[in-house]
């Protein structure tokens, strides 16, 4: 079966080369992501129950061959510099309590293994979901007696990237049975299908109905978030999930919600669930 599919793809490619000037890739690439010839990444998997699509596909498949290659080689992946910086921060004392992250959680990576694959989680103390950025801030304030990071501060992005990277290759799984996670999922689903802005587009309009098609030069993906924070070539920088949410909403010509607001936390819960079973790719490389 797989072989037949490959042959068809080759045929199509031939037709396209001989045919029109348009260079449409037509859907996700037929390729496998193995980082450093060692870590196999799940980039396609059966969708969880209740998911509107049959198959969940990583954004990696929708990028160009060059961009895909950057992510497959950690020496070339520009996001790895942020992982290194994040490790430095992890081990650096900050705040009045004289502690670093490593003071409590160790420096061998054991504590962090798999942790980033299961966020967002339910935060009992604040009665809402918590993501890695907010968990870092909570820890800084309560345990390190340090100031919380401002949204998208360079150190926030680097430390979040480092923490997520410790789960590289592990499947994303959000536990919706914790606390009131399910009602936040419901709210996130509602937002996912709500059309915003003068252009009147919802997340679903592009990422559910038209993934695999080009909008101008942009190959629309399913909008999965398993690679965040993600290195974006367009911005030559790490981009946080809430930054990306806001950018997408802004592009519909709408006002966008504040980072870590209830709306964006609900959206993070829901969209993370939509990518259930995909490997953590942080730091993914995208266009």
């Amino acid at each position: 079966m797989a072989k037949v599919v490959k042959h068809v793809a080759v045929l199509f490619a031939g037709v396209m080369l001989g045919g029109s000037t348009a260079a449409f890739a037509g859907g996700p690439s037929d390729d496998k992501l193995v980082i450093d010839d060692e870590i196999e990444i799940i980039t396609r998997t059966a969708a969880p129950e209740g998911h509107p699509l049959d198959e969940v596909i990583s954004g990696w498949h929708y990028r160009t061959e060059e961009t895909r290659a950057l992510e497959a080689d950690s020496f070339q992946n520009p996001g790895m510099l942020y992982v290194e910086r994040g490790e430095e921060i992890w081990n650096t004392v900050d705040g009045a309590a004289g502690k670093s992250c490593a003071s409590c959680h160790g420096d061998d990576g054991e504590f962090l293994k798999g942790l980033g694959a299961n966020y967002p989680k339910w935060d009992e103390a604040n009665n809402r979901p918590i993501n890695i950025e907010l968990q870092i801030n909570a820890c800084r304030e309560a345990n390190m007696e340090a100031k919380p990071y401002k949204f998208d501060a360079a150190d926030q992005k680097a430390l979040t990237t480092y923490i997520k990277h410790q789960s590289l290759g592990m499947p994303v799984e959000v536990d919706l049975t914790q606390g009131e996670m399910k009602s936040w999922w419901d709210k996130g689903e509602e937002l996912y299908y709500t059309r915003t802005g003068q252009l009147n587009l919802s997340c679903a309009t592009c990422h559910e109905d038209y993934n695999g098609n080009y909008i101008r030069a942009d190959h629309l993906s399913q909008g999965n978030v398993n690679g965040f924070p993600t290195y974006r070539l367009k911005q030559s920088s790490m981009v946080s999930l809430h930054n990306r949410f806001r950018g997408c909403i802004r592009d519909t010509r709408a006002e966008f919600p504040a980072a870590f607001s209830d709306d964006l936390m609900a959206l993070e819960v829901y969209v993370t669930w939509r990518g259930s079973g995909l490997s953590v790719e942080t730091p993914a490389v995208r266009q």
Partner: protein
Amino acid sequence: MTKGATLKRLPVAIAGLAIMAASAVTAETVAPDSVPIEDMELKVSLTGTPGDATVGRETFADRKKGNCLACHANEDLKDQLFHGEVGPELNGVADRWTEEQLRAIVVNSKAVFGDQSIMPGFYTMKVGVNVAEKHQGKTILSAQDVEDVVAYLMTLKEN
């Protein structure tokens, strides 16, 4: 209040005039959504001023105006890179649709294709929630922009 009511009646009057003597109509601009799209058609010119296809071609390509290439491929503009593929190709679009139908589609495609259409309405106030402040109360294109784009689309013939 009275002004709003008057404006609502005006388009009906304009519609009447347009049918009697389309070329002579120089009356006011038709307000967004004031003339309903019926049977996939919008028969009334939005301005009474015939569209300029040359200007329409620019509006079509302008990323801050029509940005039509974001979703539609169009051979006539093949010098511009990266035509999208979310919407149908527009080569020969004038062979497939009438001017009245194209006007309706550009003005508010959802009134033609249904609410699930991805295509934004370019001259309607029926838009998404939380519209950014600088776009509030405004349409994507002006009435004359629409007429110009429709005039341009009418030049895209293959037969």
